[in-house]
């Protein structure tokens, strides 16, 4: 069963002739008078895993939130599937089959896991709820055991799984993940990255991944961007960035986490 539409087989990823699914052009975002994004350009093509790495406070999460319209970009344009979404309110962006697992998970703590998943399916009016529930339960067997439990009683790793599962319930074409490895044990991080890979390879889902865990993220991603204080400073395939001495010095020294 595929959650997103089938990917055209045999197309090369990031083929310049193809229009990107998500395109960010010259985006500037401010918090009050403080500039957080200083004109960001970025593309995510259909069927790709694209990762954005950078240090704390570089603006990674701000970029992800700006794509979702909260905060709104003050300059520049964001296009999704050929449509300008820069000025759309967040909930309408979500209805265009973009889903997000936000920073800090933001699950509904007092509601049960099942209800959290129901909330995830509210965009398509629960049309495929049973199928999708089965699908996320196969991906995350832990959640299946805990469907009736409250979200707030789950462990950190399980909450992260729930946040991803909830995002998947809307059958997104593009999935935005903000630091899914944050604060998790290495084994769980591995599991989560394996699931991201599976979603991309089996379901053809396009994934935009914001990470601090540069080693894992770059190994997984087709392409990557490096962000430093509100600017994209480097981009390339995952392998290129992994081997780049500057990236190694800044984000990978001291072994892989």
């Amino acid at each position: 069963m595929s959650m997103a539409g089938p990917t055209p087989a045999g197309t090369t990823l990031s083929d310049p002739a193809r229009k990107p699914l998500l395109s960010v052009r010259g985006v500037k975002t401010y918090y009050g008078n403080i500039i957080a994004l200083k004109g960001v350009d970025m593309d995510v093509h259909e069927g790709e895993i694209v990762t954005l790495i950078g240090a704390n406070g570089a603006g990674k999460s701000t970029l992800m939130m700006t794509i979702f319209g909260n905060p709104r970009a003050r300059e520049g344009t964001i296009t999704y599937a050929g449509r300008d979404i820069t000025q759309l309110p967040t909930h309408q962006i979500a209805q265009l089959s973009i889903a997000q697992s936000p920073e800090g998970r933001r699950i509904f703590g007092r509601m049960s896991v099942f209800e959290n998943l129901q909330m995830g399916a509210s965009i398509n009016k629960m049309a495929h709820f049973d199928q999708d529930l089965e699908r996320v339960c196969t991906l995350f067997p832990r959640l299946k055991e805990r469907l009736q439990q409250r979200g707030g009683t789950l462990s950190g790793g399980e909450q992260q799984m729930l946040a991803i599962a909830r995002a998947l319930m809307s059958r997104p074409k593009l999935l935005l993940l903000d630091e899914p490895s944050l604060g998790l044990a290495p084994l769980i991080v591995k599991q989560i990255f394996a699931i991201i890979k599976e979603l991309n390879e089996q379901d053809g889902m396009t994934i935009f991944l914001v990470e601090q865990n540069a080693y894992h993220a770059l190994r997984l991603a087709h392409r990557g961007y490096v962000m430093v204080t509100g600017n994209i400073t480097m981009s390339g395939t995952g392998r290129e960035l992994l081997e780049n001495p500057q990236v190694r010095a800044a984000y990978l020294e001291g072994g892989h986490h």
Partner: protein
Amino acid sequence: MTAPSTIAADDGSAPVRFDLVAALKDSLKAGAIAFGLSIPILAFKTEQSGGDIFLRPRWGLVAVFVAIIFGVRLLQHAFHATKAYRLATPDAHQATEFVHAEPSAFQKVSRFGIPFFLGIAISFPFLIYLIQGGLDQSRYWVDLGILILTYVMLGWGLNIVVGLAGLLDLGYVAFYAVGAYSYALLSTTFGLSFWVCLPLAGILAAFWGIILGFPVLRLRGDYLAIVTLAFGEIVRLVLINWTDLTNGGAGISSIPRATFFGLPFSSGEDGFAAFFGIEYHGMQRMIFLYYLILALALLTNFVTMRLRKLPVGRAWEALREDEIACRSLGINTTNTKLTAFAIGAMFGGFAGSFFAVRQGFVSPESFNFLESAIILAIVVLGGMGSQIGVAIGAVVLVGGPEILRNLGFLSAVFGESFDPNEYRLLLFGMGMVAMMVWRPRGLISERQPSVFLKESKAISSSHVKEGHG
């Protein structure tokens, strides 16, 4: 709490035993402080005789007071020590296994309690009739029942806004007022009957709910509370000052009484009693009002329970938990908030028009901030979001002060000159403080999921972190 017996529990060391000596020492200290404090406050009573003032010592009272403080403090230590012991004893299944929480006392209560409470509520006038032995004697109790049910309904209405959607509303009484004045004005001006005015009052209140909702969409928590508080006051001040329409502070009197679907409760030939061929009694109207408010309250409950299972109800609860997550899941938070305000306000409006028909008189004085505060206290004390909790909260908060009228036995303890009625509200306030210390999230803090899969399982709220906002 700096008591020696509980410190050990905080750093998670070995199970703590109850340290009697330390507890006794601390309790003695508390007793000594109480004694010191009571010298200027309690120990002397001034008595005027002619032009002179005499000091009459009351050491007996001081002794009783100090003894109570000592005893309560000792009990508190014992309570904390048992609790610390229980917490320090590791639970093999804690957090790593599927949590099979034993149903708590309150859940057991709710399983058998709901039919029980419902039965009591339905048969209340008959029970009172049997207990009091006559219709006239039961008047006070039925009246109290009506009052409590009005607050149950208001509590349930506000629960939609505060408990489910998490929007702290301190001006709920505004919608109660809109409902009451809608019925009062429509019936006195146009002669419309109660049954026509009831839905109209609901619609008007819902409309005002939306009007309040729009400017406060971006606000949360404390800021929202302040604005809603101001809104409640604005409505009251308009009612006072718009004399042409509302007759100002004098209020609107001689509002038509409720009829039994057209049959008035009068001793006349076309009255309710004559129609059914029974003897006329003034209590018939009261009992009818009782069942009317019971039906309205149950309607509120029924609608709320249904809504909770629908997408809009789920969206309310999700909104309470996390607004940003809600939006990124495609929920239109604007509409969600406005529906919460409108539906909550609608039930406030229903309750308001019931209030007007019951009293036959409305004035702005009935809709002051204290009313809002009581309704909010009912919701918070009962347990936000819990229907049965709110009902119990209303019984305790509205019925409690009445029951405390019967405290004659206390004068046996404190001496003949002690008038328990004077201490009624003090005791009540102490009870509320104690409750908020021991059950900070309300009487019924467990939230039942809106969907049950095969077996239902509840997790005590103590396992869950406090929600935002």
